[in-house]
């Protein structure tokens, strides 16, 4: 028993301590301050992955890189969904948001906003030919698709629309084209980019959303005024020397860094690619996500979860009322709450009480606790299925509690436990896709990134599914072999 516990503690130490020390070391060996930039990576043409090189690029990325050059920052990009970007800033997981943050009063009071780097205006997007949607006023009582915490969602709500929450513009456009929503309010540049790069004629711009210009900025935490000052000095300099205008013309054939720089023209688009080309260029990054994140996350969480499950199961069986009560409560909470919620509590909740883990560690903690909750009942049932005579025989030859467990009971319990535990493992493999919402670029996230850029939802998600399925088939085969091995001492 003691050896098992020591193993668990060691594993936990490796997971918790090692990554944070690596992070600390990388920050130390350079004199420049490291500024972590939060961005979607799925919002072309501002923040997206080049389909050929997979490199993160776009207007916002180049602008923040130019600012960093001026200000002497070392940048670290952190990609996350829009709706978790501000929580990530609050939780100090990132230091600045470079993702077309529109200025509004609420943000001005809560965050440290830089000077404006992009001027644009909002547009109302409708299904092609839908005359019922022309202006903001027509949205009253209709449904729009938006990132729920975006400024455009606020504009739509203020106009009386019901807002369906989505992740990114490409998803919103897909919902609109499918007739699931009536309209979208968004930045004109993002819409023009979508229309040009997809060649879609399912949706069209109905008109401007209001008369006011929208101003986009970098958002910092309120207390990081030094960073804001550095950014503003850099923006002034970059505007003066024409750098921002140059970046803007490259993407939009107009200067959006000033209020009257002309209309953006994206008619040439970024080039439409065929489905096969998209799949070919995404297959490798998805495989990397699978091998470098999905599989390690699955195996590590399963190993730790199983060790915890054994501890919880033994506590649950123990004659101590306190121990078994604690174990019962743990199992009940884990099984009674959504896994996604558990993940969010570890990743976004715990930092508020000072417990901040890197994304991978946070995911390992959440997933192993979840596995422990489910596997504990499996392990408990398997231990109780070992005949009482085995415990007695072990006692009569002089084995104590932990030796009896290790040498006599657990090897026999393993036979009963392998099939249900295999189910847990398969579920876990697929559940790690939830890691995509806590900044982990795993297999599913890679497919999301590619889908946002190319709009090939069906092909890319099916392809990601194929990867998961192949691994599951492999695991099932391994389960079969293990079962055969464990059955060698049973008459068949």
């Amino acid at each position, binding site marked *: 028993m003691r050896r098992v516990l020591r193993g668990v503690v060691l594993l936990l130490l490796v997971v918790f301590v090692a990554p944070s020390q690596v992070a600390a070391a990388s920050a130390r060996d350079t004199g420049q301050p490291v500024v972590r930039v939060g961005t979607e990576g799925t919002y072309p043409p501002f923040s997206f992955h080049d389909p050929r090189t997979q490199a993160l690029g776009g207007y916002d990325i180049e602008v923040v890189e130019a600012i960093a050059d001026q200000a002497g920052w070392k940048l670290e990009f952190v990609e996350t969904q829009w709706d978790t970007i501000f929580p990530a800033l609050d939780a100090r997981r990132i230091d600045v948001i470079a993702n077309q943050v529109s200025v509004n009063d609420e943000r001005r009071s809560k965050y440290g906003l830089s000077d404006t780097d992009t001027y644009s205006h909002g547009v109302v997007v409708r299904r092609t030919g839908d005359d019922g949607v022309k202006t903001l006023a027509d949205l009253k009582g209709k449904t729009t698709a938006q990132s729920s915490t975006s400024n455009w969602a606020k504009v739509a709500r203020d106009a009386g629309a019901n807002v369906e929450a989505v992740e990114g513009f490409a998803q919103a456009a897909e919902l609109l084209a499918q007739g699931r929503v009536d309209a979208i309010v968004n930045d004109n540049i993002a819409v023009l980019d979508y229309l040009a790069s997809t060649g879609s004629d399912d949706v069209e711009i109905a008109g401007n959303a209001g008369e006011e210009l929208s101003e986009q900025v970098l958002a910092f935490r309120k207390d990081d005024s030094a960073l804001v000052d550095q950014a503003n000095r850099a923006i002034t300099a970059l505007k003066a020397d024409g750098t921002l205008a140059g970046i803007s013309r490259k993407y939009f054939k107009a200067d959006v860094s000033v209020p009257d720089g002309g209309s953006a023209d994206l008619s040439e688009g970024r080039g439409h690619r065929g489905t096969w080309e998209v799949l070919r260029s995404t297959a490798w990054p998805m495989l990397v996500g699978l091998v470098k994140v999905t599989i390690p996350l699955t195996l590590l969480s399963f190993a730790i979860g199983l060790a915890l499950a054994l501890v919880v199961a033994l506590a649950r069986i123990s004659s101590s009322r306190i121990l078994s009560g604690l174990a019962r409560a743990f199992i009940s909470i884990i099984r009674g709450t959504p896994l996604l919620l558990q993940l969010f509590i570890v990743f976004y909740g715990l930092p508020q009480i000072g417990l901040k883990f890197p994304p991978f560690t946070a995911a390992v903690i959440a997933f192993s606790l979840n596995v422990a909750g489910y596997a504990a009942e499996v392990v408990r049932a398997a231990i109780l299925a070992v005949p009482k*005579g085995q415990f*007695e*025989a072990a006692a*009569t030859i*002089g084995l104590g509690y932990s030796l009896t467990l290790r040498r006599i009971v657990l090897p*026999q319990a393993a036979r009963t436990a392998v099939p249900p535990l295999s189910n847990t493992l398969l579920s876990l493999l697929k559940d790690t896709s939830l890691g995509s919402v806590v900044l982990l670029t795993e297999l599913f996230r890679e497919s999301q990134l590619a889908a946002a850029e190319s709009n090939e939802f069906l092909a890319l998600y099916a392809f990601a599914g194929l990867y998961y399925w192949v691994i599951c088939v492999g695991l099932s085969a391994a389960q079969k072999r293990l079962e055969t091995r464990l059955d060698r*001492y*049973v*008459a068949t």
Partner: protein
Amino acid sequence: MTDTTERNAERARVRVSGLEKSFGDNKVLRGIDFEAREGTSTVLLGPSGSGKTTVLRSLNVLETPDRGVIGIDDVEVDFAALPPGKAGRRASGLLRAQSGMVFQAHNLFPHRTVLENVIEGPVVAQKRPREEAVADARTLLDQVRLGDRGDAYPFQLSGGQQQRVGIARALALKPRVVLFDEPTSALDPELVGEVLAVIKDLAADGWTTVIVTHEIRFAEQVADQVLFLDGGVIVEKGPSARVIGDPREERTRRFLKRVLDPG
């Protein structure tokens, strides 16, 4: 201080006095007293529910008596004064280490070979060198006539063979007394003889044994002393020839008559 050697010579190998045990409201042992001298066989007879198995399991502390004293060789435990928690478990463990147990349902470890079953206790619990334990185990397996089955798994053996492995496993601990809990009750009738023969050999070899059984004829041959239990008390005890051949108590007579000529 009296002379210890002299006291050891006089003292019985197994000493039981005032043993009481209840399961809830059911009082199964109501004061059991007996002794067994070194090298003798004691057979416990009695109808089911008489408490004989509970007596045997108490000797091994698989059941913890409520009151009474059990002594085996140098270890003696007064259960009325058993300290709670760790100290109590330690005392019980010392007493348990004095005996080896052969179960009705052999309880061999199914995931271990015959040889591994036999050396588990000596190597893991008693920390004896593995080579020595293996050599001893091979001798014991020869003794129970299973010298060639060391590498078999229990499921590959017949019921009688499994029970003989169970006996070898108990003997491998070099216990001061070997306890048998109805060792032939779970066996097919044609396999009973081989197991009884092995137990008879042990008795002849000088092992101290305490046996719960329903085999009256076997008891008559092997037992130096027979205890007849009923309702949680020893109704009659004495040499086997007298208790089985010429019982004084009515209850003993009725039991023997029922078992010896059924129907």
